[in-house]
């Protein structure tokens, strides 16, 4: 029985199994190569943007990147304290602010923090104008009178290199200063050192043990600096605005110092992150829960109206002879194919107070000319227009399910003595439920993400969460919050879609056919 044991060989002598496996591998590779360009295209043009949005909803690098020294210094401050933080924080903040103002990034930081605590944007803007005119100029003058070498940028260059360990603030401020000057395009060795460097040097010298430097210039400066009139940076900031002494301001900065924050997500559900943990926003600022609720409620109303209007039509289409049904189907498909803007404009025209519908109602004397109905720029307008726009998405899946219900079921029920109503309700309707499910999920998914129609006919009370997302992207520029709201909406849709896939299956998506 050796014929069974020995492997079957192909013409060129390789075992058949291996040869088939290779062929299968090649076929898989070829299929994948055909798909690969499109996959790459969609990943780059579509999936990457979505991933970017998810990332932006938690990203918060701006605080850390703009005021790194302050963030570092605030770590040692206990936010439970009733007073403002110590001088070290104000020193660090002064250094950070000077360079932030040079890069003009302090206003951006101010607007970012303003989302969390109103008033910070103007506080940062105001301080940015004044931070270059602090009394730290006195330090600069005093050092320069002591030794003209302090006027020379080269002295700083040498010291920042050799004494970096004993002069940490000076070294770090000098490094940032070099970047700032070079970004300006000028030669750092020609430049005049800024006041902020002298302030950092003064702070370093006061901290270091007396006479501990190898460099005689520094030892001399240290003993002289002890006699300088100290400039309190805390008071300098307080002179700009008393708010800098408010510990709440510093708590906000400390709370949002992390590179990633759940803050935007908390804001999207009317919460806020404070030093004492998560809290509700003030009564007047709570709008998002209301807006999410309204979006869900109105989508539900639209879905139900679509079922009520779509079911009879789908039933009629499914039970008429094919030729008649096909002609009537055009009445469903034409709106489906007409531009969304066309349908929205026609509703805008029809529903106006001086529009066609009100004119007809007045002409029929149903409504008095003085009390024309307000049908637009409110929830009614959004619901009417969106029901019209989404109705084909309900009729088409309902129709395709109803086509598969054999007419003999109802006839059998009737022959067994059921009335028309019982035959419909106990036999036909249960069979059509999958169609209602599919259509409802589809209409609901489309409705909760709608933007254009609510924007145009919704007024202020008929808008959806998507209108708020658009507002934050283009008007308030709070992109993080827009991304967080978008992420919540995206996950809601994905969960619904997953349900849809369970009911209908992803491959059964039909396009008007």
């Amino acid at each position, binding site marked *: 029985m050796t014929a069974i044991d020995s492997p079957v060989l192909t013409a060129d002598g390789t075992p058949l199994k291996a040869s088939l496996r290779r062929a299968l591998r090649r*076929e*898989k590779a*070829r*299929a*994948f190569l*055909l*798909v690969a*360009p*499109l*996959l790459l*295209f*969609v*990943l780059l*043009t*579509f999936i990457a*943007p*979505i991933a*970017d*949005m998810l990332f*932006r909803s938690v990203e918060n690098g701006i605080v850390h990147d703009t005021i790194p020294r302050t963030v570092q210094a605030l770590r040692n401050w206990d936010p439970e304290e009733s007073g403002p933080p110590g001088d070290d924080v104000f020193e660090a903040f002064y250094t950070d602010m000077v360079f932030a103002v040079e890069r003009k990034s302090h206003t951006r930081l101010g607007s970012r923090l303003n989302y969390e605590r109103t008033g910070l944007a103007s506080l940062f803007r105001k301080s940015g104008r004044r931070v270059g005119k602090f009394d730290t100029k006195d330090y600069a003058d005093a050092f320069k009178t002591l030794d003209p070498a302090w006027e020379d940028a080269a002295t700083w260059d040498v010291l920042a290199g050799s004494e970096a360990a004993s002069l940490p603030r000076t070294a770090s401020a000098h490094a940032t200063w070099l970047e700032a000057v070079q970004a300006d395009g000028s030669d750092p060795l020609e430049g005049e050192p800024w006041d902020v460097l002298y302030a950092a040097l003064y702070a370093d010298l006061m901290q270091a043990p007396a006479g501990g430097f190898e460099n005689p210039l520094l030892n001399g400066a240290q003993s002289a600096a002890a006699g300088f009139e100290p400039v309190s940076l805390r008071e300098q900031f307080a002179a700009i605005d008393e708010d800098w002494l408010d510990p709440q301001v510093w708590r906000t900065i400390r709370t949002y110092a992390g590179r990633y924050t759940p803050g935007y997500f908390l804001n999207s559900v009317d919460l806020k992150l404070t030093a004492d943990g998560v809290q509700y926003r003030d009564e007047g600022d709570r709008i998002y829960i209301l807006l999410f609720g309204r979006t869900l409620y109105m989508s539900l109303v639209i879905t139900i109206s679509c079922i009520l*209007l*779509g079911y*009879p039509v789908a039933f*009629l289409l499914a039970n008429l*002879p*094919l030729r008649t049904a096909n002609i009537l189907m*055009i009445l469903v498909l034409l*709106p489906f194919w*007409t*531009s*969304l*803007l*066309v*349908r929205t*404009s*026609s509703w*805008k*025209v029809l529903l106006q107070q001086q*529009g*066609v519908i009100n004119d007809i109602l007045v002409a029929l004397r149903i409504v008095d000319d003085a009390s024309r109905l307000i049908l637009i720029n409110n929830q009614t307008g959004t619901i009417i227009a969106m029901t*019209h726009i989404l109705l*084909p998405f309900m009729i088409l899946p309902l129709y395709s399910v109803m086509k598969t219900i054999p007419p003999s079921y109802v006839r059998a029920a009737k022959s067994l003595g059921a009335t028309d109503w019982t035959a419909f309700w106990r036999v036909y309707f249960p069979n059509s439920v999958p169609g209602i499910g599919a259509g409802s999920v589809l209409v609901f998914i489309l409705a909760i993400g*709608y*933007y*254009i129609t609510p924007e*145009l006919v919704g007024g202020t009370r008929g808008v959806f969460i*998507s209108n708020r*997302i*658009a507002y934050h*992207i*283009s008007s308030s520029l709070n*992109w993080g919050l827009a991304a967080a709201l*978008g992420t919540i909406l*995206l996950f809601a*849709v994905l969960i619904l879609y997953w349900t849809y896939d369970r009911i209908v299956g*992803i491959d059964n*998506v039909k*396009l*008007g*056919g």
Partner: protein
Amino acid sequence: MSGLPPYASFTQKTWHYAFRVICGVVFFFLIAPIIVIIPLSFNAEDFFTFTPEMLALDRDGYSLKHYNDFFTNPDWQQAMWNSIRIAPMATLLSVSFGTLAAIGLSQPHVPFRRAIMAILISPMIVPLIISAAGMYFFYSRIGLQGSYWGVVLAHAALGIPFVIITVTATLVGFDRSLTRAAASLGANPVTTFAKVQMPLILPGVISGGLFAFITSFDEVVVVLFVGSAGQKTLPWQMFTGLREQISPTILAVATILVTVSVVLLATIEILRRRSERLRGMSPG
């Protein structure tokens, strides 16, 4: 449903006709808003309602002035040309990539088929406002925001699911032994594709392309965010017109667009019937 039996009771008869009336009302609701703007677009006045002259079918009540405005106003003309420049390019991209991928996906052995399909279909599922937000953020990072190619790439991505769905549906009925026959007669894969496979799936490819074209041509949310004033398309111009100062020219544009969609719908319907007849799937 069709016709009543002679023994139908009074209630049955009433219900039968009442039901038809209900359906008629719903059909009216579906179609009337689209029909009503057509006569309104010929209004001689700048009103959005029927004037007494129009109702009296007086010739003076009607005019082509709103159409005239559309064809002479530089804003509308610019918007029309932008739409004509963007939509075909986006369609070309989604059809060429999409057809290739659909052929790949219809092979019997495709690794990670479900996952790939989910990714390719996703632009159709994700709400437009979210796609628009993500694209706005990402395209401004890489410098595509506010550029012609940014809008074209975004629209191509949105059109791809439609091409994939229609072309894979056509390929389901494709007889694979035809390509094997061509290969056994000595045709190389390129010839087989061009001479055998492509002519047979062409109806599907064209209707997929029409879907992609309509998606791009009608799209307004993404172009609002990804585009800049230089890429202002027709729907965008309509959107601004509706939000700010609504002018009757919009009705003329709307009428033109309805005509375009009727033509496209008819084309797709003819192609679908042809393709079903070719595959012997349609009863009539």
